[in-house]
């Protein structure tokens, strides 16, 4: 990766990290949602550096357009007052969680750091609509159909729980 690609990667990476930090650290829930939005848009930019245009568009469409909107929507419905105080928790559990996280991070970082793999040339249709379409509807048809069932179950379940008891 050279030139414009590298620059774009660095910029989007920085924004992605900033967005993620805002998401976690912001006190107001809506600002956290906005941090998530920044993060997601940056990720879409990163997909662009990987030549995955369709994935970038879908990232925006699904995550920025649907999921963040849903978050914002829920925050607005619950009300702007629903701000959380500092998280309660015992020192032991918090430090254990922190140590575990650190350990996992270190393990992954050392393993990935020593990772040595050859670059693989991608196909010409990599990242294109045709390429992704073939991948989804021909090679990975079974998982695709399974996902549709998963979503169907989620919808039915949500309706079953939310439907008014009188019906």
């Amino acid at each position, binding site marked *: 990766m050279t030139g414009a690609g590298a620059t774009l990667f660095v910029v989007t990476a920085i924004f992605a990290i900033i967005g993620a930090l805002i998401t976690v650290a912001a006190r*107001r829930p*809506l*600002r956290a949602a*906005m941090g998530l*939005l920044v993060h997601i*848009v940056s990720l*879409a930019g990163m997909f662009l550096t990987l030549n995955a*245009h*369709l994935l*970038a*568009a*879908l*990232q*925006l*469409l699904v995550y*920025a*357009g*649907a999921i*963040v*909107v*849903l978050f*914002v*929507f829920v*925050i*607005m*419905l619950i009300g*702007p007052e629903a701000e959380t105080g500092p998280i309660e928790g015992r020192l032991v559990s918090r430090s254990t969680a922190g140590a575990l996280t650190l350990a996992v991070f270190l393990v992954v970082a050392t393993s990935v750091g020593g990772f040595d793999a050859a670059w693989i040339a991608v196909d010409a249709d990599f*990242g*294109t*609509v045709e390429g992704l379409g073939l991948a989804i509807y021909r090679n990975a048809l079974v998982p695709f159909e399974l996902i549709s069932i998963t979503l169907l179950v989620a919808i039915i379940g949500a309706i079953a729980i939310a439907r008014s008891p009188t019906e």
Partner: protein
Amino acid sequence: MTTEVLLLSSILKIVFVLVVTVGAFAPVLIWAERRQSAMIQDRLGPSRAAIVLPPSAVAFIDKARLPMWRGFALTGIVAIVALVAVTWVAVRGTNPLPIPTATLTKALIGFGAASVLLRIGYGVHGMIVRNQGKVMVLGLLHPLADALKFIFKEDFVPPKSDKFLFAAGPIIALIPAIAAFAVIPFASTLHLDHWNQVLPRTGEVAGTIIPMQVASLDVGILFIFAVASTGIIGAAISGYASDNKFSLLGGIRAASQMVSYEVVLGLTLVPAFMVYRSLRLEDMAMWQHEHSWGIFNPLLALGFIMFFTAAIAETKRVPFDLPEGESELVGGYLTEYSGMKFGMFFMGEFVEVVALGAIAAILFFGAWDVPFLYRDGFDFRLPFMASGIVVPLAHWIVIAIQVLFFLLKIVVFIWFQLMIRWSLPRFRYDQLMKLCWKGLLPLSLLNILLMGVFILSGVLDKYVGLLDRL
């Protein structure tokens, strides 16, 4: 292609898009809409903003009127003569005149246009004189006054609001609307090296090729959906950040309405993708140029009606303007906005109207395709005629006609949207949701299914072939 040409053409294209959308269409739209509302309510409307010319200029204009009238009459006569000659040649089939047919046609177009322009100039000059030097341009200066007002008005920020989000809202709402134009093709590809030659009708042409759109993305229309979907957040967070119950309710309404209709918006277009076999807008335009406009396909026509309904709902305009329904919510999420921030929402809405017109024109009405216009010029040939009237045109003229026609189509759709805006009453909220989830959504899914059946059974191919022969 050299990098300089690429860069220059890109910049030119971006400037063109901005000028057309933000610079020209949006202000004209603001004017047209206010004008129309004034007509309906029998008011004077936005027509009083004027530039006052000095008396000397008025006197000069008065003097220039007579020459203009003469010019109009002269050019008009020549144009009529040319018209008669062309018609005669066309009916006769051969051209016994010493002047070639192409020259005659060019004369007809050139002199006709000149005479119309001169007549308009004559009328306008007369109006200026009658108004004692006040140039009002049909009230078109009013948007300019509006813009000045927006800029200089106090930028009120509610004291307890979330200032950052309050400021970010309008920006998030405006940018996606403009960004959508990045992938819209205004004409077929421009062959820069042969710009003043007549190109062959088909086949590859060597040399530099400049696509007449800012960015040719593989994802095409999905890009528009992707950026448009982020626009929802703008409305939602400005409703939240205003620290006002009406704003909040308006924001919630906006978010739920737009999220709901976005689903339908995408699904109604799927049959079109199935026919054109591409998501690229330029491919869709080319398909329609080579075959027939999408609207002549019955299923796509149904898709168009549903798409247009959903798209108007997506722009949150009457009859779907519940997020800002003034009888219930004061101004919805716009309530607390003033000055340029309000102006940005306003602008965003109108740019969306233009974008919608452009998308509808591209997907269903042939984009830049002009009937009988090919890459080598006009060829008026009807099915019952043995050979058509061929008017070879230089490449740049063909492109210019395509751009003009495309803009004309956009104007038609904008007019259509304005008509809808002033004709239909507002929906009730449950009707709005019912229309989306119980009406448009199942219907659009059915449409996809039917289109799939047609394609797989080969009916579509036969139908397209039939249209091709016509």
